């Protein structure tokens, strides 16, 4: 596979992951590269290993175990790092937004408190990314959330998470997660809980922001229709193995494997 042009943010090579007591690996020699500003779609059915791949990149694969291969983020090999060594990288170098925005917020705290906590933890990085003093990091973050399509966020944040719509929560989460300027964003089924029109607008906005800020994005989805509109390249996974990878147009337009062709046909009916 010839590498895409540009600065490689994430390079995964021959990654193999095993579950205790199971012969078949959960991921079997998976390789991929994501460059700055690019969106790579990881597409597959339930059980294909998509989410496992995401969890490996942030090194939260336990109870599964890395059994081979490498994960390099901005040149740093992650596969041998301890949890202690990973901590400063999470949120700062690699951020993840998952499927359920309701579950990402603690229902017992206001949205404001949780945003303030995130900014307190990552204050230096957020302030540096926004070019403001640490004291202004929180106000700047609310501006960022508002600019990302949540009008009046600072005032609305006084409410509880359940008083926000899922779409607004997911927008706030993405704007927040990207505020410390991570080099890599992992989006694991970020729109599965949203209506299709809401999902498409959100993903289009995410892509625009990621390109403008040079963030590499790994978009994990079972929805090839979404990947078709949102990804530069696509990697198809099946039962932990790579089936096919290529630029979105090529892969969808002329899939080379029967499985990828079947997936494309199952999306366009």
């Amino acid at each position: 596979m010839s590498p895409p042009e540009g600065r490689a943010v994430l390079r995964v090579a021959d990654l193999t992951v095993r579950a205790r007591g199971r012969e078949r690996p959960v991921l079997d020699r998976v390789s991929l590269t994501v460059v700055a500003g690019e969106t790579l779609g990881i597409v597959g059915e339930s059980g294909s290993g998509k989410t496992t791949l995401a969890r490996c990149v942030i090194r939260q694969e336990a109870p599964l175990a890395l059994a081979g291969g490498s994960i390099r983020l901005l040149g740093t090999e992650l596969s041998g790092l301890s949890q202690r060594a990973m901590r400063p990288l999470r949120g700062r170098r690699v951020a993840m937004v998952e499927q359920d925005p309701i579950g990402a917020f603690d229902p017992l705290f206001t949205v404001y408190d949780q945003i303030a906590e995130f900014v307190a933890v990552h204050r230096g990085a957020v302030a540096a990314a926004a070019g403001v003093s640490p004291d202004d990091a929180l106000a700047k973050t609310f501006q960022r959330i508002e600019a990302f399509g949540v009008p009046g966020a600072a005032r609305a944040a006084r409410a509880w998470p359940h008083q926000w719509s899922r779409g607004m929560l997911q927008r706030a989460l993405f704007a927040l997660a990207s505020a410390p300027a991570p080099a890599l964003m992992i989006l694991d089924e970020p729109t599965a809980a949203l209506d299709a029109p809401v999902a498409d607008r959100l993903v289009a906005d995410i892509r625009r922001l990621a390109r403008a800020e040079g963030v590499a994005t790994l978009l994990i989805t079972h929805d090839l229709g979404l990947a078709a509109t949102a990804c530069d390249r696509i990697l198809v996974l099946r039962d932990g193995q790579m089936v096919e990878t290529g630029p979105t147009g090529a892969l969808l337009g002329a899939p080379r494997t029967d499985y990828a062709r079947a997936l494309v046909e199952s999306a366009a009916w």
Partner: protein
Amino acid sequence: MVSVPLLALDRLSVSVRAAGGQPRAILREACIEIGRGEVVAIIGPSGGGKSTLLKAVLGLTRFTHGRMTFEGDEIRRPHDAVHKRLRAAAEAVFQNPIAALNPHASLRATIDEPLRARGMGQVERMRHVDRMAARMGLDLDLLERRPAAVSLGQAQRACIARALAPRPTLLVLDEPLSALDALVAAEVAALLAEVIGETRPTVLFVSHDMRLVRRLATRVVVIEAGRIVEDAPAHRLLTAPESAAARALVDCDNRRRAALAATRVVRHRETVA
């Protein structure tokens, strides 16, 4: 003679009251008349009241105001005589087949149950179940298994077989594909379209998947924030939607279809052996 609609909702409202809270309207004054043989899709944003409408029709939730008639007779409350007639004539398929199926019953017993309830003889039932299962692509040996021992797709096929085996007058589907993977969903959709074409029930279904709406519906009702905002023949709604909610869904579907189709000419690619 003016034909009587199979099912008519006249300003039907459903409201719920959370513990200690004010009543909240989920469905507001819904008016729909459904004629025999129509395939009616209900679409619209999440939380708008689509599933609540289905539940009210099936008697799974009480409506608080308005009238509902079945074959011209008014249903005055859940489980009255007219509603029992509706329930006897209706079958439903829900989103999650594993939750819908009795975990202790084999697929055969599951498909058989509504036939037995309608008093069909054992020999005829057996033949009927075999034929319906084969029609839905379920191998006969699968029929002896329980839901936990089959895939989600096979379980949903069993649910559809169960619903269609007694040839219901009214078939109700609530997001029948959304728990299924893409490949399975496409297969189940194709089968569903075929068996509906063969048995011609009146269908009322909710789906956020515009592909299923395009495939099945003869008419589309759009519900937003508890209100019906559009009700039109499917071909008109899919080509010239008038409500903002319908336009958003149709535009989104068209964009995805274009993205999936427009790429067919590109040739350059990489492949992993």
